[in-house]
């Protein structure tokens, strides 16, 4: 028994030593990040982490911010909100960060919000759901478009094609469920009728029963699939396997070349709302976002050898909004930086042009989304969107 007590004590003391050693004493600006680098949401957290690392290095190579170097501290919550909360506490109490970027998932973000609100530390989340910024919380901001905007964008496109009755098949993960709820909520206002609804598990390998039911539902004119990960790729394949010819919409959750690769020829004709980032090379030279997205795409692909996704772009936007706020504030003072983030106007990022205000901690409008159609294995811009 005594040996065990000793063991526990050693473990705790050891932990103190390890943490103590990890803290260099210098006047750096510390930026914390808790991301889902592994686990079911790793395709969010993985590009986010890589993006933050690439750009923090780049900023430091150019002399840092206000003459101070940035120090990035990333923890992996593995998609578990309890872990996220623990790491958030650690960032505040141990690492003594000046600002926070990230929270890949809505669950993790919601779990961390009280920690940063209590500690009065600016927190820019990279998660999708609208609950993060509605109601507005003093210290909390976010960069990705909300699910609600994606629904509205899809519904607007449907109206333009005179399609009003749809079926929905959504993933049962947090992303799919949250977007599904938003779509159901905005459908009546957009004049869209949802005739039937189906769902699938995040790791399912065949969705033909659900799609068969949708096919056999009278009056359905189009199908919408809120979801992310590999699920939408399989839904798309099954869609073509069953020979369904109705217009098919995916969500902003699959805005990555990977989706086209996984879904293969079945992806032809699929439409989805995405940020300008995906079509960097196709934007007209006059588009204000063009230099930013081309630059990010090149840097990311060159450093990682992987295709860009909009998720990495959200992290880029979060970091840049924060850094620019620090530059405007001429310090890393938490309260001043917070005020400057809120005053962000005309920031041109990968996700769109951001204009924040005390009542809007996102600052994006529908114009940030482009309606894309997959043709010949590549994205094309749907005219008039």
């Amino acid at each position, binding site marked *: 028994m005594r040996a065990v007590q000793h063991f526990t004590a050693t473990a705790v003391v050891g932990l103190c030593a390890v943490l103590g050693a990890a803290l260099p004493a210098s006047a750096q600006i510390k930026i914390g990040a808790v991301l889902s680098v592994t686990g079911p949401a790793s395709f969010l957290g993985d590009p986010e982490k890589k993006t933050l690392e690439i750009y923090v290095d780049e900023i430091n190579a150019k002399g840092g911010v206000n003459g101070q170097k940035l120090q990035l501290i990333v923890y992996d919550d593995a998609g578990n909100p309890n872990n996220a909360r623990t790491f958030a506490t650690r960032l505040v109490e141990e690492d003594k960060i000046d600002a926070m970027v990230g929270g890949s998932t809505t669950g993790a973000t919601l779990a961390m919000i009280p920690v940063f609100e209590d500690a009065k530390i600016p927190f820019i989340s990279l998660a999708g759901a609208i609950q993060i910024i509605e109601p507005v919380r003093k210290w909390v901001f976010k960069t990705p478009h909300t699910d609600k905007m994606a629904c509205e964008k899809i519904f607007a496109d449907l109206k333009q094609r005179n399609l009003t009755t749809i079926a929905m098949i959504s993933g049962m993960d947090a992303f799919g469920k949250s977007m599904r709820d938003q779509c159901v909520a905005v459908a009546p206002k957009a004049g869209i009728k949802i005739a039937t609804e189906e769902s699938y598990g995040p790791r399912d390998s065949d969705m033909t029963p659900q799609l068969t039911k949708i096919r056999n539902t009278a009056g359905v004119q189009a199908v919408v699939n809120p979801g992310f990960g*590999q699920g939408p790729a399989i839904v798309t394949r099954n869609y073509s396997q069953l020979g369904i010819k109705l217009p098919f919409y995916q969500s902003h959750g699959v805005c990555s070349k990977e989706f086209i690769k996984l879904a293969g020829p079945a992806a032809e004709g699929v439409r989805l709302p995405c940020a300008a980032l995906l079509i960097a090379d196709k934007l007209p030279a006059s588009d204000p976002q063009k230099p930013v997205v081309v630059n990010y795409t090149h840097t990311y692909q060159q450093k990682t050898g992987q295709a860009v996704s909009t998720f990495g772009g959200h992290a880029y936007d979060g970091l840049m909004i924060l850094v620019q706020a620090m530059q405007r504030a001429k310090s890393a003072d938490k309260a001043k930086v917070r005020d400057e983030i809120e005053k962000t106007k005309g920031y041109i990022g990968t996700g769109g042009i951001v204009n924040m205000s005390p009542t809007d901690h996102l600052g994006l409008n529908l114009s940030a989304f482009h309606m894309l159609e997959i043709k010949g294995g590549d994205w094309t811009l749907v005219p008039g969107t």
Partner: protein
Amino acid sequence: MAELLQFAFSGLTVGAIYALVALGFTLIHNASDIINFAQGEFVMLGGMTTVFMATAGIPLPLAMLIAIVVTTGVGLALHRFAIEPARGASPVALIMITIGASVFLRGVAQIVFDKRFHSLPPLFGADPIQFGGAAILPQSLVVLAGAAVIVALLWLFVERTLLGKAVIATAANRLAARLIGVDTRRIVDFSFAVSAAIGAIAGILITPIALTSYDVGTLLALKGFAAAMLGGIGSPLGAVVGGLLIGMIEALCAGYVSSSYKDAAAFLIILVVLIAMPQGLFGRVKVERV
């Protein structure tokens, strides 16, 4: 009718995947009484290694072969370096080692490979076969055939070869098997190697349908384990029947009742079956000696 047929095709596709994964559990269990929770990682290794070999420019058939060899090596290493040194530990401790191994392999895979999803081209094209108003992918039939071949081979092995009898003897009573000259350590070695190979083959065959990624193993192992238990652990036929049954229940529930509760339906039926038949559908009754 066409609707029911389509549901059945879906059940067959998903069920064949579960069945292939479930088969991997049987041999290790038979030889050592261990439920190998790293079985899902064998499936992952099979698929991911093939994908990365193929991306590196190695022809697909060779890539598959390398994947099977690599995974078999990992299975062998798992036994030699983790299970064998802990010989004599309680079954729960041994299972905990396989859980540790599963976390370890996943952790290594995310470094060696990546964290993205990958697919493989199907063996016989992607054009669905139309039958009675329903469509099934040729690859689904390949997975099904793969499961059938493995069951047949396992049956032949156990019934017709001395090595197979030795596995059964080891399973029944390790000490007695050793007394009659069976090298039980080699037998368990062998069972880990073959189970890993079965896992790798499963991974290669199902990737064109289900896709793969470094963490695909957890859920597959869960469903495979459930299928093996429903059929009666240790019986290859039981594993396949269990897998197909779970696939069918999920598809029919998704089609006729509710797609959000299809997993629940599968586990509910497993519970009911086990309460009625405590050894699963094809399991053997084990007598406890005092």
